[in-house]
């Protein structure tokens, strides 16, 4: 689980541009459908052909709640301030860009 979630430190679309600092990007079945600033609190209900979940953005962190997938690993991930939360059964991905430190210190992670 952790390897799947944390191995994605970059975008899921073909652009050289990184997620802007402080941006949350939500993809459904491979397409970016929602983009929100990390600032500001909100709840986003996301639906795909396979199921649904709710993305909560609060205090510059993001988490997934109310997921309809059987294992709820995406929920167990908890709050993240950068990186990605992927719900594989639902084909929904939540990506969080972050300022500073640099998302691109490595091109990929093994393990």
């Amino acid at each position: 689980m952790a390897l799947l979630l944390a191995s994605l430190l970059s975008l899921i679309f073909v652009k050289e541009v990184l997620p802007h600092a402080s941006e949350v990007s939500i993809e459904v079945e491979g397409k970016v459908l929602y983009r929100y600033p990390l600032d500001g609190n909100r709840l986003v209900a996301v639906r795909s052909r396979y199921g649904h979940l709710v993305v909560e953005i609060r205090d510059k962190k993001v988490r997934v709640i109310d997921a309809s997938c059987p294992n709820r690993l995406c929920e167990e991930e908890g709050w993240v301030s950068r990186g990605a939360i992927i719900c594989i059964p639902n084909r929904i991905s939540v990506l969080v860009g972050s300022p500073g430190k640099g998302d691109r210190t490595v091109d990929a992670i093994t393990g």
Partner: protein
Amino acid sequence: MMRGCDFLHLKFMRGEGIARIFLIAVLCLLMTLLISCSRGRERVFRKSKILMDTIVTISVAAESEDKAEKAIESGFAEIDRLDRMLSFFSESSELSRINRNAGVAPVSVSPETLEVMQRALYTSAKTGGAFDVTIGPESSQWDFYKKKKPDDDVIRERLSLVDYRQIQINGIKSTIFLPKKGMLADLGGIAKGYAADRAVEEMKRRGIRAGLVAVAGDIRAFGRKPGGSGWKVGIRNPRAKGKDDEIMATMELDDMAISTSGDYERYFIVDGERYHHILDPKTGYPARGCRSVTVVARDGVNTDSFSTGVFVLGPEKGLGVLKEMGFDGVIVDSDGGIETTPGLRNRIEFQRHS
């Protein structure tokens, strides 16, 4: 140009200091121009897709988004194509047909499935059976989501069905046969590495000079990034507590593949004991001895299968196999001690965590 060269050459040979410096400076400038011109204006493009029940991320160096997109899609298509043949969970896969016909009849397979099975047997032989794709009857009994461990007598009963030496491959007829009813082949420990290799070949055919294919943690890199650096890969810390210490070490891949097997990928803890998904084919229980094993070699099909085999063998025997195969690797043993093959010592950078 020729005359200019001759002129400089003469001055150079005569040892005139200024001319020598000038010549070197011109050469340096030319080199820089040549390098940046030949690369066009290459950038790195990256895309991810869910395939083989995991995240597949492909990065390529290309001059245009269009070229990058086409190449990346061809990589994804190849991985998807292989998944349909090799998936344990898909009823229509060739692997499932082989499993359904265990003890019944040989099954006709594609050259790719045949190749994967042959490579799997090779790794089995080289690891003395520590890697064994016929582990299916045992691995299918473990449920890491429900945190359920099979009963000891169930584990014991099924052991006789685990034996790679019984797999019958007919290279001429292109068939695979599992002779005993109940035998199950699971290619999960080798298919991702193999798929990464094939995706790379596809992209090279499309004229891509440099790229990286990551099928979850099974990674294959080729060429160097625009700018000249190698693809940088992080090795996960098997006992990471958060995002800050999640990477234990980093290294650059120079036309190599890398894979890691770990006891933290799928596991549950019961009565203080960790039960993880890498089973020892000889006992049916999770292998003890290592927390994680990372293997670096030319091909993903090897790094994937050998990382599992070496993990099961444990640090001592495992390092011996790596040495024999001429592979490199990092082993984190059950106490957290880290061993690296000599070939990696100057190439790997361990992170220091507070």
